[in-house]
């Protein structure tokens, strides 16, 4: 089996293990990353929500906010998010590669 094929399988294993990135912080009672608090958390921390922050914070409604869907099992949606995210990222890179190679004719041999 080629190395790149093995690495893709490795990424699949990482996707299955990804809920660890959810449960381990929960177990150790760790909160959000520094500077990534939502408006509610900011309200609790400061006693108010900065006006500009409040205005910009809801600019974009992501379809799977925080890699989850309310009401569905968190670990399952997290794994699903990993698979969707990997597929979307790989697809965008593939598109980019096509665009760059077409302009070039062919990629460089090493």
């Amino acid at each position, binding site marked *: 089996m080629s*190395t*790149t094929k093995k*690495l893709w399988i490795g*990424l699949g294993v*990482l*996707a299955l293990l*990804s809920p660890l*990135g*959810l449960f*381990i*912080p929960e177990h*150790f*009672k*760790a*909160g*959000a*990353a*520094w*500077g*990534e608090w939502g408006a509610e958390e*900011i309200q609790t921390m*400061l006693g*108010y929500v*900065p*006006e*500009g*922050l*409040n*205005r*910009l*914070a*809801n*600019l*974009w*409604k*992501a*379809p*799977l*906010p*925080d*890699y989850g869907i309310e009401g569905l099992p968190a670990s399952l949606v*997290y794994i699903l*998010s990993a698979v969707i*995210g*990997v597929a*979307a*990222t*790989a697809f*965008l*890179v*593939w598109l*980019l*590669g096509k665009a*760059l190679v077409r*302009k070039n004719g*062919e*990629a*460089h*041999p*090493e």
Partner: protein
Amino acid sequence: MHIPDGYLGPPTYGALWALMVPIWAWAGRMVRKVLSARRLPYLALGAAFSFIIMMFNVPIPGGTTGHAVGGTLVAVLVGPWAACLAVSLALVVQALLFGDGGITALGANCFNMAFVLPLTGYLVYRAISTGAEPNSRRHWLGAGIGSYLGINIGALLAGLEFGIQPLLHHLSNGQALYCPYPLKIALPAMLGEHLLLFGWVEAVVTALVVVYLQKADPALFQKGGPR
């Protein structure tokens, strides 16, 4: 390190978007010019790896969480310019599909995590590993040390961007408009947690994957390497 929408004011996020556009254009040019065909599969792999490793949140017990980025690892495999594009695309997917990092802040997040982080890591890696045999420990040591420095420079930049907001924007009653924490809080918080924990996670992950690849695909580490 994914700055959400609302933490940076327009001058900061605007400037960093404006800075990233020519960087992406230059990166595209460089990738076209110097990336070899046999390294192309590692471009998609690297972007996908960066996406997924950022989902592995590591806790500071009772405190915040953070994660590895993998940017230096991608740069070691495909060069810093291809890594810039690969990690940028992972950040685009995180922002658009999962709301992880803002849209207005995407320029800032790409500058910190997709440009400065991999470039710093790569330059340190090259300084340590240039001329080394493919099986030399200088490759995984160099990648590990480079990745530790790269992620910490990225965290330092994020801390600066957060911390200058109260200087740039505040209401007459003293309330903040955007990120409310000044440099003296934001800088030690961002840098401290990466120096103490998340940087080591990045270094260990990077070094382990390089050790594996040195055995599995030693041609990747031939003298010269990607540019």
